[in-house]
């Protein structure tokens, strides 16, 4: 069988794209490998980073925040997107408009607004404001909203949820059973897509965490960046790798029974 050949123009664009992404990474890596004292390469910057206790605590905190954000976003938005598609399709344009708002409002405005709202308007309890697991995750759910909702929206558009829902109900299933056994497994890929994006956002979000005075992984990177240049570069690469590994982990967890689960619309 003949293998499809890539045209010259495609190969050129592919090469330019690869250069655009790879060159900064290679540059950063080469820089991070310099000890700074002589021209030889070493892993000393990496060693400094991984032996720093703050690295691990902030990394753990950001991963936990990401997972919490993913969980809350999916719990809130899967039923919302399902209901909008099933029963309230006329609301679709309004919800889509709402998904644009987090792009329009800069994070700095968002965090000031949220702090004023929780602190001044609704008088949220102190524990809510001082712990990242509450306040920061609330802000991150808003930031992740467009990505998660749009991923789910694409997933719901790809399956015939009306027929699947009615088929499930005619067989005696409740709304809950229909949701958990029929709908969620068939939008798994879309939910995973939203989760990946959320993870990437939280692992790299600096403005809100910094302005709200929380010490997360991105704020730790910023601090190191201002103090130790080689370690900052190594940290950037480690952060990059961790995000990719975390995404891979999510993919593997999500695909747990992938061999069984067939994607909707694949017939």
């Amino acid at each position: 069988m003949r293998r499809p050949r890539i045209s010259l123009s495609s190969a050129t664009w592919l090469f330019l794209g690869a250069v655009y992404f790879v060159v900064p990474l290679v540059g950063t890596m080469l820089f991070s490998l310099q000890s700074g004292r002589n021209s030889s390469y070493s892993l000393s910057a990496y060693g400094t980073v991984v032996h720093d206790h703050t690295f691990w605590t902030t990394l753990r905190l950001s991963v936990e925040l990401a997972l919490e954000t993913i969980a809350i976003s999916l719990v809130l938005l899967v039923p919302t997107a399902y209901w909008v598609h099933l029963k309230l399709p006329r609301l679709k344009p309004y919800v889509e408009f709402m998904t644009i708002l987090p792009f329009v409002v800069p994070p700095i405005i968002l965090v000031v607004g949220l702090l004023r709202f929780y602190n001044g308007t609704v008088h949220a309890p102190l524990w809510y404001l001082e712990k990242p697991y509450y306040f920061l995750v609330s802000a991150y759910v808003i930031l992740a909203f467009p990505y998660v909702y749009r991923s789910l929206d694409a997933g719901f558009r790809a399956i015939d949820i009306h027929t699947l829902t009615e088929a499930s109900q005619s067989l005696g299933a409740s709304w809950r059973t229909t949701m958990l056994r029929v709908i969620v497994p068939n939008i798994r890929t879309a939910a995973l897509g939203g989760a990946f994006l959320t993870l990437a956002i939280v692992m790299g979000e600096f403005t809100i965490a910094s302005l709200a005075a929380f010490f997360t992984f991105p704020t730790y990177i910023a601090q190191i960046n201002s103090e130790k240049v080689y370690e900052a570069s190594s940290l950037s690469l480690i952060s990059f790798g961790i995000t990719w590994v975390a995404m891979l982990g999510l993919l593997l967890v999500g695909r747990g029974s992938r061999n069984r689960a067939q994607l909707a619309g694949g017939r």
Partner: protein
Amino acid sequence: MSHVELQELRRSFGDFEALKGINVTLETGEFLSLLGPSGCGKTTALRLVAGFDRPTSGRVIVDGKDVSGVPPNRRSMGMVFQAYSLFPNMTAAQNVEYGLRVRGQPRSVRRKRVDELLELVGLGHATKRYPHQLSGGMQQRVALARALAIEPKVLLLDEPLSALDAKVRVQLREEIRRIQLELGITTIYVTHDQEEALSISDRVAVMYGGRIEQVGSPAEMYGSPATPFVAEFIGTMNRLVSRVAADGVVEYAGRRLRVDAAKGLPANERVLLLVRPETVDLERAANGAETEGSVAGEVVSHTFLGAVTRIRIDDGSGGRGLTADVSTSKAARIEVGSRVVARFPAESARLLSLADEALPVIDPDDQ
């Protein structure tokens, strides 16, 4: 007591009345088809029976109980949908098993029932296949097995064959009837395909404009249409707008035709003369002569249908003319453009009073 009863069932969507009060009953084990063109309200009626929609007024009675307000998951009605509705994340066996799992049936019972049903629909070999690995016909067989697994009180089928190709459609409709008879399950079948409805139903309800026009056996529907719409929709029918001329005689486009059904009707009454094409006999006309009790005209077209050929004749009335189904060998001797005389037995034609009623026009795609 009838098993299923639809009483004055109405459904409106804003100003649009999709169902205008339908009444029909089904006995246990009966196979009823709701037949009609697109937009006639047949699927709306089925959805009201299934519980996916609530009637604006009227009742759905099953085994003497009003189930109009009961949610679909508590009605115990198996449904096969027009669109492929298998759960894509489950195998054929898991799809069939789903309703039993929801009901908390033990694993051994579930397995046995799934095996039995997949064998029944001829898919015992495909239990582990996912929907995307099955053809359209196979998917609908699994959907049928899935609907039957819960031992429903009523089986509802919403145009289950419309997405399949012609050959599979015929095979599967015969299988649906075989299985329905084998299990003795009360069935409501929605279709716009008259051939499908007539071939597998105990009774057919023809719907038009949100109303049931006529309910009867396939033979009754074909032989004795009660309304101009049914006459037009079921089979091919010559519809000749005529007037009663005398006792047992009607006048059509200036010709006097003997029709038994016109006996006892008041003279001058406007009627629709219904003549099936297969009852029309054609002869070549000598010099275009038209004798008493016949209609002369010119052959306009031939349509080959296999054993018979459908011949259309322009009878000069300005209307649709006449259609006759003659054997293909005879049709070979009647060329397009030749003059013919058409006759039909006086006892074979039927009459419908027209009064001032306009004739319904049906989109050919809906037939």
